[in-house]
């Protein structure tokens, strides 16, 4: 276990050192070391159950690490959760919406909780293409519409560290473009993103680098299985195969 | 409660001692057993034995 050295610099969006987590007897994460600079877009690859989502939840302060230290813009995830939550926007598997509130009410609630003005709500709804259903309850929304509404909440928040856990699920082509546009926009503003993926194709042209997680650790790729952005789908599949990702 | 003396009741005294001793005895056996089991499990796990 590394000593808990001070964070590299507050400019590092993420500095994870030996982050480990166990559930019962099972170690899902066995010491993740990952540094993400501000303005950097990093993809996380790995097969099901390798601990990607667990890692994201730890960074987002939703789970406590069993061991290791993790800093977001210099704030310790474990002990300074509130400061971290000011920076982090998390787009998870679940929409995190209230079924009995309308789209607008959901966003208004989010804006109040985040401390942002409600004035931006219409713009956010407009952008994700939900203006025609603003006053309808979320209960009647399709999975894709719920994803778009969750994205609208992120647009309101404009986090400095974006955590996206399989963001393209349930999104159509337009939705994917919307998502990528938002990621690029945050990137241009100096924000960082960590994107968990099981398929690199939709994220082409967005990521600066890709990290592979295997058996709860960052897998250091050999020269043969380096994945660089812009690689062909076949090359990515081959590289992923070499890294043991089916 | 208002009776001046309780003369009988020896069977309650005996019962309470028997119960106490039985409970403590069972606890002793079970706890010693659980330590043994856990220890054996640890030794097996450490030597790389397969555990379901």
């Amino acid at each position, binding site marked *: 276990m590394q000593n*808990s050295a001070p964070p590299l610099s507050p400019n590092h969006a993420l500095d994870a050192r030996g982050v480990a987590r166990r559930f*019962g007897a099972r170690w899902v994460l066995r010491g993740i070391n990952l540094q993400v600079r501000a303005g950097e877009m990093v993809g996380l690859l790995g097969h099901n159950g390798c601990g990607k989502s667990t890692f994201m939840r730890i960074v987002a302060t939703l789970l406590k690490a069993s061991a290791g230290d993790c800093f977001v813009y210099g704030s310790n995830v474990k002990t300074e959760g509130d400061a971290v939550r000011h920076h982090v926007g998390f787009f998870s598997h679940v929409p995190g919406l209230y079924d009995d509130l309308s789209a607008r009410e959901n966003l208004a609630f989010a804006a109040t909780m985040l401390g942002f003005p409600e004035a931006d709500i219409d713009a956010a709804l407009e952008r994700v293409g939900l203006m025609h259903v603003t006053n309808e309850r979320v209960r009647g929304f399709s999975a894709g519409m719920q994803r778009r509404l969750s994205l609208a909440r992120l647009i309101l928040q404009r986090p400095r560290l974006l955590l996206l856990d399989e963001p393209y699920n349930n999104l159509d082509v337009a939705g994917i473009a919307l998502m990528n546009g938002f990621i690029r926009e945050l990137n241009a503003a100096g924000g960082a993103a960590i994107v968990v993926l099981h398929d690199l194709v939709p994220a082409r042209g967005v990521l600066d680098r890709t990290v592979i997680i295997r058996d709860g650790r960052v897998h250091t790729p050999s020269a043969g299985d380096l994945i660089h952005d812009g690689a062909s789908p076949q090359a990515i599949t081959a590289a992923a195969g070499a890294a043991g990702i089916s | *409660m208002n009776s001046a003396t309780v003369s009988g009741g020896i069977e309650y005294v005996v019962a309470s001692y028997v119960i106490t001793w039985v409970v403590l005895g069972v606890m002793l056996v079970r*706890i010693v057993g659980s330590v043994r089991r856990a220890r054996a499990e640890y030794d097996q796990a450490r030597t790389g034995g397969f555990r379901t």
Partner: protein
Amino acid sequence: MSPVNTNAFDPPKAGPWVAIGWLSFAFFVFTQVFAVMTSPADAMMGHLQKMMYVHVPAAWVTFLAFGIVLVASLYFLMKEDERADLLAASAAEVGSLFCGLTLVLGMLWGRPTWNVWWSWDARLTSTLVLFLIFVGYLALRSFVEDPQRRGQWSAAVGILGAINVPIVWMSVRWWRTLHQIQSNPRGLSPEYLRGLLLNVAAFTLLCIWFIQRRYVAARYERAAEHASQAAALGGNDE
């Protein structure tokens, strides 16, 4: 910067605990026999007085065990040391058994004295509530798998439960006072006091020994889980 605490994964240290166990049991047998043999029949209660040497010590160690749960829970929340959580769980398990024993002994004492198995007096009732809190605590532990979550939740339940016990006692006593059936406890004559104190000491030793053994078992289980993980996946950079 929280230093990572992985002490709970190491196997527990060995100690002279087997010898202490034998000694505790020998001492316990001695104090029991000594107290029963030396105490004369009480003027008012006759031989029933002898139940005091099991009932009162059992009640005392029940509260001792719950005190350990309280302190260990607070320590766990402050330091996040998993060993404290395991200690709290061990104390709760042992304590719940002593608590059940105390209740049964209380009923056995109440039957010939008050002619009822159960009287709603403050001590008996708050012991029953304490027992129920213990049961809830242990049930919660068995229903939650994740150790971090289990530790935090059961610590919270343990602390609130401990706060509640004196409150229950106070409210039940006040309730009983209103209903005018409170019995007056008498002072204890010195000939009984010596036997009682010896037995309290013996029960305390036994209780601590039980908790320590249970804790060691829990530590071995933890260490075994950890070791089997390390073995199965080829090393762990802890």
